């Protein structure tokens, strides 16, 4: 059954995925995406993304600022869904706001927080290397 956006509930491997970048110092440099752009929120352990490419880029900007309420957004780190699955992460698509999904399955270790952080950094760095930096 399709979601309200018309997208299927399961994210396809070839779907483009956008992570809206909101910090020029922490999410990228002048040419590359940094691992910080792909680290999950420590409060819920999820990485918020949009199931959308960057074409047209004006629509990405509108989505980021109006639908996702990310006033500081200045661009996207664009990646294919299959790259996220290659590092043993997956998606939960909730379509709230439209086209929204969370990247889930991040390692967390209550007995050794730093080790869990190191594991997450490795995955985030792998994603950053595969991502394309596109600014509005």
């Amino acid at each position, binding site marked *: 059954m399709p979601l309200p956006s018309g997208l299927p509930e399961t994210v396809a491997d070839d779907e483009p995925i956008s992570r809206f970048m*909101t*910090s020029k*110092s*922490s*999410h990228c*440099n002048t040419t*590359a995406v*940094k*691992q*910080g752009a792909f*680290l*999950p*929120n*420590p*409060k*819920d352990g999820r990485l*918020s993304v949009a199931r959308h490419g960057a074409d047209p880029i004006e629509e990405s900007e509108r989505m980021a600022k109006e639908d996702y*309420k*990310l*006033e*500081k*957004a200045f661009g996207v780190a664009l990646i294919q869904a299959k790259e996220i699955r290659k590092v043993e992460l997956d998606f939960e698509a909730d379509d709230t706001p439209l086209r929204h999904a969370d990247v889930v399955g991040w390692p967390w270790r209550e007995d*050794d*927080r*730093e*080790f869990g*952080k*190191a*594991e997450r*950094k*490795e995955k985030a*760095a*792998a994603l*950053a*290397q595969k991502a394309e930096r596109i600014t509005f």
Partner: protein
Amino acid sequence: MSETLLQPGGILALGAGVAWGAFALPDSGVSPEAISLQKSFKEYASHLEVSESLFGDKAQLISHLNELCAECSEDDWDGYGAEAVSDTVLLCAETFIRALPDGIAMPEISAEPDGQISFDWLPTKTKTFTLSVGSSDRLAYAWIDGSNRGHAVDLFEGDQLPPRVLGELQRILS
């Protein structure tokens, strides 16, 4: 330069330079002692220039760190609910910068959603070394070198980088 001159050693070095310049003009020394002294001063001045240059890079990075922490001093600095970077984390990150060995390329710095500071070396498109400094004395880090990648945690005692961190970093930068 100005920051080095504020150091006690820097003032002393400037004083020595001025004093030397006042009585030892080029080619004016005639005794073997004067020639030897002139040679020693040139070596010292050369060493001082190298030290200033390295300290300058670290000073610049510390200045950037302070700007970054000011930008990220309140919760939700990224719009996704990130935690603020605390003064404790700032001090730990500054200590880490001071412990970077001479000759290592300066990293890029970022704030992370859990309020830690990340030190990132991105020498090529396929090589990454990233290390987080938080308020604990344990450093979480990860690296990617082509198809090889890994992660680890090491204890940081504040004066020098753990040998394993330094080894992995040097390998990625080589």
